[in-house]
């Protein structure tokens, strides 16, 4: 038995936790931006529920039974304490099917016929652009660190194709769709390192998790990368300037190898995870008024 006046407390606590997630921007670690308005509605409801419970205390007995089910409501609050910065880890990327036998990393794959890429990692329905340029509005890509700027020749710096977070999947999708067409172009993007023995010795996948609705449906997208001189730890976030090449890879479950893009990194810098670590299957620019 617990005092009846405690009954509004779970609702009030849940409302406070949700409002904290919403106002701090941490809600984007869990939900697609389009679903945030629903989370506001839910927080408001929890607040109203607390008020309703408070109001109904007038007719309530002094003490009430604490059901086992009520304990369940502690779980979401407890879970917040376990969440780490940077969103889902590289291990989730692997467990969600990021596995591929990169069987050939030589440039001779140039002769491969242009094939449609695999239905994962980078090949998504994208709005077709008449001009194959990635250089258009870069919104949220990390600024090029000074150390990288010094490392790179002016010729490269002048022809950088930016892959911004706001249109990450759209632009990555275009490269996966036509890897040979993008061969030789230099791109700049941010992601985290995911390693697997199937990527070849020293190779890794520069990964972002693409979120369609909530973090439960997040899928890995990005590019295979050639080995670096100094190996990077798994899960490390980096901003890279890299040249697009092509290779052949047999993705997890595929019977045959296909031509896929692979990055040769010209320069990189370790970075912190972005405030919003996820990317989305459409351009966030298109949401702007």
């Amino acid at each position, binding site marked *: 038995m617990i005092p009846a006046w405690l009954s509004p407390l779970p609702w009030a606590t849940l409302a406070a936790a949700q409002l904290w997630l919403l106002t701090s921007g941490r809600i984007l670690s869990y939900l697609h931006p389009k679903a945030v308005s629903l989370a506001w509605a839910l927080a408001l409801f929890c607040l109203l529920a607390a008020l309703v419970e408070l109001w109904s205390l007038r007719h309530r007995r002094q003490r009430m039974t604490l059901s086992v089910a009520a304990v*369940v409501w502690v779980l979401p609050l407890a879970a917040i304490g376990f*969440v780490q910065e940077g969103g889902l880890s590289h291990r989730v990327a692997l467990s969600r099917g990021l596995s591929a036998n990169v069987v050939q990393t030589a440039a001779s794959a140039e002769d491969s016929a242009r094939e449609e890429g695999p239905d994962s990692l980078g090949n998504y329905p994208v709005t077709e652009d008449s001009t194959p340029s990635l250089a258009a509005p870069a919104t949220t890509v990390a600024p090029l660190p000074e150390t990288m700027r010094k490392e790179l020749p002016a010729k490269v710096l002048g022809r950088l194709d930016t892959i911004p977070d706001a249109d990450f999947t759209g632009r990555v999708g275009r490269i996966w769709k036509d890897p040979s067409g993008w061969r030789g172009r230099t791109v700049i993007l941010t992601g985290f390192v995911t390693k697997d*023995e199937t990527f070849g010795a020293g190779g890794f996948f520069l990964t972002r998790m693409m979120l369609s609705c909530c973090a439960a449906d997040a899928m890995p997208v990005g590019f295979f990368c050639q080995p670096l001189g100094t190996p990077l730890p798994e899960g490390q976030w980096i901003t890279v300037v890299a040249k697009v090449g092509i290779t052949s890879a047999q993705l997890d*479950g*595929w019977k045959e190898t296909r031509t896929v893009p692979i990055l040769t990194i010209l320069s990189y810098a370790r970075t912190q995870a972005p405030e919003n670590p996820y990317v989305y299957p459409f351009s966030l620019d298109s949401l702007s008024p």
Partner: protein
Amino acid sequence: MEIVPTMNEFLGDAAIVFLSLCLESMPFVLLGSLLSVLAERWLTQDRMDRFLPVGRFAGIPAACTLGIFLPLCDCAIFPVARRLMGKGVSPAAVATFLCAAPILNPAVIASTAWAFSGTPSLLGGRIVGGVLVAILTGIVMGLVMVRPAIAVRPVPSGPRRLSPMRKAGPAPACACGHDHGHDHGHGWRGFPRAVVHEFGSNATWVIVGAAASALVQGLLPRTLLLTESGSQFPAIVGAMGFSWLISLCSNADAFVARSFLGPLGSGAAMAFMTFGAMLDLKNTVPLVALFPRRFALAFAACTFLGCLAFALFFQWAGAR
């Protein structure tokens, strides 16, 4: 591939998945709870007879098309279905509604069309398959559940139908999930408290389901279930098992299904989209907890077999 996460990483990832499932589904559970209480107070005998004809199978067509007009995903369906069953709607119609609504939902159709923009057969297949499985499940449930199935705790007030389906049903109690023998009040005065308690009752079980799903996802690599083999049967069953475990919203599952369209085939993608929308771990917990056990078991068996059969047919038809 070796995936042995440390405890911190495992809990961190599981916590994100768990919270995201909760945050994503709860607004829809709230919507379903709101509709459930509205149905309790607004659905009179006359209105129910008009929309859902009385009879073991008579309500199936209406229940099937109800999904088009009620834009509810799988999270929002079960409070409404539970209430309809409590009001005396036949198990056949309720089962049909549970199957059809998450697939005929306009938002689900739109997201599927977008995800499979180059392959309209998947969109058409999902709609046709969903309707066929829903009708089949309804018919089978009508045959199996010949005796009244109202063991759910319906409502203290409001009219109940006098059909043969619920003559021997146990006396209804409060639907708020509390055994405290109270009444939320008649009319609109007790409406807010009824909604709060209805939501609390339903959401509790969704939280349990989401927690189970998050833990299982962390422990079980997707590749364990979704590995290509020579035969389509294990690929389709694996896709169904995967869709049940990860408990995705039917609004977003098409994007994930697309990722293994190539490796596993169109039959597996279809199985993932049809079965996952009708039944997943997150919703199985409330289904078992809030509905009669016999109904839950029969419903799960029917949807599984129906979706499996349709996916095999879809794969076979596509290969020809």
